[in-house]
């Protein structure tokens, strides 16, 4: 037992969890913990808006595969985190958010900068803690990290009243904790695995749908082993993008609203679908009732509540993706030898893919989103980390930017948070400083958190903002063009600000690219640069994203051109 203040207990507990970086902003109600932060070796990264702190912690957490940490003060500091916490929740990203709260006696009195952040965050966190005494702090922090990182990861909020931060008391740091109502199913049930094996062995047209769970579990080798063993083609959800090398002969790319045409077509022809760490979101499968009526579905997920939530399945396997895939492969190898040669199904897959590719018509302009992204792919080393903003830029990335090395891509796929990519890329850079990190952006999204340029420059976290600038909220414009008879409203951003000058004003580098030649040069300069670089690529505001599965329709209703 040692005598510590609540803030000291917090810092020691964070250090015990191996925390080396905190993204945040101080304010009235978290000053005691910030004061204590000065006496640790933890790196503090000062943000310019708390939303970005949460996104940075999220990006950091996804790349490190352990919880990223963000700090904010009470009231507005805490509410500014909400979008970031919600983003992490929807994408099952491990984040621990620590907020200051007004002193215990003031709670519920509508004190200055008071807000019920636990009430607000209850439905977008895995759990929330509010220590009411110093003694509770170490255990709550340990439980918080355990909950955030284990099972299906997610954000945890720890809301600490200011006087608890200041009070001194005897505390102990538990080595072992038990959370009675929480025990993630890691190892799959062998009978469930057996049923899945039978379905796979009897399949004529099997298909794998790899979701975000493959990333979270780090099951890239296991996924590839299974696909190659049975020669099963692999589609991914958008969150699963990059779970399987997209240049692999069995890769069909993401399905969904803006999925690859061949993936959307071929998944509907499968007779057995193996969904891995995926949640059958409307964005991926379209209308729930229409999707996969004729196919048998095997569903691997660590969260039992995902089984049957959106889609009833024939063979559920509840467990960690990596453990479950290992069990599947082990059981399968006992039953069959590795498949060689091409089945009629694989031949058919190749024919469909070739037909789609040969029919593709690019936008006529010299510099387009597709050509820009292909150029980036050509020049960017495969181990680089890529994230995106939200909107057309994100969907073009899904379509035209292949992830070659698994685990190097993430995006705000669930909540679809504009402004996510740039701060998240800074968080990823903090987690893995030795690789290039690129935020594929649009102007609308980048506007939302562009003040993180200050962080990128001052904290020496240089990332590349690959800004496909169409001077508008392009995705909204596309919907207005397609569904609202070109009655445009609220989409024109008028090329303000000047992104080159904006970057320069923060001490970053800004390069404009109005042709493919300029873009080629700009990417090469950015890759050699030791400061953040914004590449301002001017594309046509009327370049649309296709294919498109309109909301509320099924994958079979996919529109492939305007």
């Amino acid at each position, binding site marked *: 037992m040692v005598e510590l203040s609540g803030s000291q207990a917090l810092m020691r507990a964070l250090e015990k969890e191996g925390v080396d970086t905190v993204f945040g902003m101080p304010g009235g109600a978290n000053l005691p913990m910030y004061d204590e932060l000065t006496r640790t070796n933890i790196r503090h990264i000062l943000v310019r808006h708390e939303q970005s702190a949460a996104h940075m912690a999220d990006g950091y957490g996804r790349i490190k595969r352990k919880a990223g940490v963000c700090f904010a003060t009470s009231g507005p500091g805490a509410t500014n985190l909400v979008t970031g916490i919600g983003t992490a929740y929807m994408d099952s990203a491990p984040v621990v958010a620590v907020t200051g709260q007004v002193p215990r006696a003031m709670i519920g009195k509508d004190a200055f900068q008071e807000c019920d952040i636990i009430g607000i965050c209850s439905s977008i966190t895995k759990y929330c803690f509010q220590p009411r005494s110093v003694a509770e702090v170490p255990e709550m922090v340990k439980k918080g990290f355990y909950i955030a990182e284990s099972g299906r990861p997610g954000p945890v909020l720890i809301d600490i009243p200011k006087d608890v931060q200041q009070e001194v008391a005897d505390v102990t740091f538990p080595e072992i904790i038990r959370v009675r109502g929480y025990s993630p199913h890691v190892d799959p049930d062998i009978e469930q695995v057996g049923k899945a094996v039978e379905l796979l062995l009897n399949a004529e047209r099997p298909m794998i749908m790899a979701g975000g769970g493959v990333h979270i579990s780090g099951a890239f080798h296991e996924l590839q082993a299974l696909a190659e063993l049975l020669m099963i083609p692999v589609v991914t959800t958008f969150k699963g993008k990059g779970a399987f090398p997209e240049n692999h002969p069995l890769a069909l790319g993401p399905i969904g609203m803006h999925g690859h045409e061949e993936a959307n077509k071929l998944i509907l022809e499968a007779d057995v679908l193996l969904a891995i760490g995926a949640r059958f979101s409307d964005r991926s499968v379209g209308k729930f009732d229409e999707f996969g009526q004729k196919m048998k579905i095997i569903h691997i997920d660590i*969260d039992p*509540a995902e089984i*049957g939530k959106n889609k009833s399945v024939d063979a559920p396997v509840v467990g960690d993706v990596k453990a479950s895939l290992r069990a599947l492969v082990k059981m399968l190898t006992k039953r069959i030898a590795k498949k060689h040669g091409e089945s009629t199904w694989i031949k058919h897959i190749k024919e469909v893919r070739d037909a789609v590719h040969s029919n593709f018509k690019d936008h006529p302009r010299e510099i387009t989103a597709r050509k820009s992204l292909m150029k980036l792919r050509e020049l960017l080393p495969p181990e680089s980390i890529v994230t995106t903003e939200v909107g057309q830029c994100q969907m073009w990335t899904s379509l035209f930017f292949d992830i070659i090395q698994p685990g190097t891509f993430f995006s705000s796929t669930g909540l679809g948070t504009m402004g996510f990519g740039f701060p998240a890329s800074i968080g990823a850079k903090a987690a893995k400083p030795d690789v290039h990190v690129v935020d594929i952006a649009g102007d609308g999204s980048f506007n939302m958190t562009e003040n993180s340029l200050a962080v990128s420059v001052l904290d020496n976290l240089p990332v590349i903002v690959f800004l496909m600038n169409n001077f508008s909220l392009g995705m909204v414009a596309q919907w207005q063009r397609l569904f609202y008879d070109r009655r445009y409203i609220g989409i024109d951003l008028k090329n303000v600000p000047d992104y080159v000058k904006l970057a320069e004003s923060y001490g970053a580098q800004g390069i404009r690219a109005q042709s493919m030649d300029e873009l080629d040069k700009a990417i090469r300069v950015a890759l050699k640069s030791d400061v953040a670089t914004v590449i301002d690529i001017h594309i046509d505001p009327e370049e649309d994203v296709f294919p498109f599965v309109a909301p509320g329709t099924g994958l079979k209703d996919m529109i492939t051109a305007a």
Partner: protein
Amino acid sequence: MVWNIISALVENKPGVLFRVSNMFRARNFNIESLSVGPTEQSDLSRITVTIDSDEHVAEQLVKQLRKLIDVVDVTQLATDNTVYRELALLKLKAVDPTSKMEIINLANVFRGKVVDVSKSSVMVEITGTPDKIDAFRRLVEHYGVVQLARTGVSALPRGVVYE
């Protein structure tokens, strides 16, 4: 549509009822009744929920409840092997002695108790399944129900359960 009784053991601490009810709202579960109270273990409370829904919805509700960290155990109770009861207090309009006598007699038939009588009203306490309470209410409705309070269902499975 099936009537389901779902019983959850939850941590007995502040904020838990909020988390549970907030999940119902956030995930669009339209529950019929909810009751909460202490159990044989001082650190656990029991929340009993009834819901009239498709079986698939009830199953999801159970899974989503289990997912909450503060929820320790969840059981979907089979109505044919469960004792379930609700308590209702009905304040009925009864000005003349005849009405009062009639209400007292009806309450006796339903094994209810008269717990308060005033110049113009009679209050009946009745315990039973929700159906029984509904039946009694229909029977006395024409006297005029001045106020009604129901507790929601409490339930336990029959026999001994070893955990």
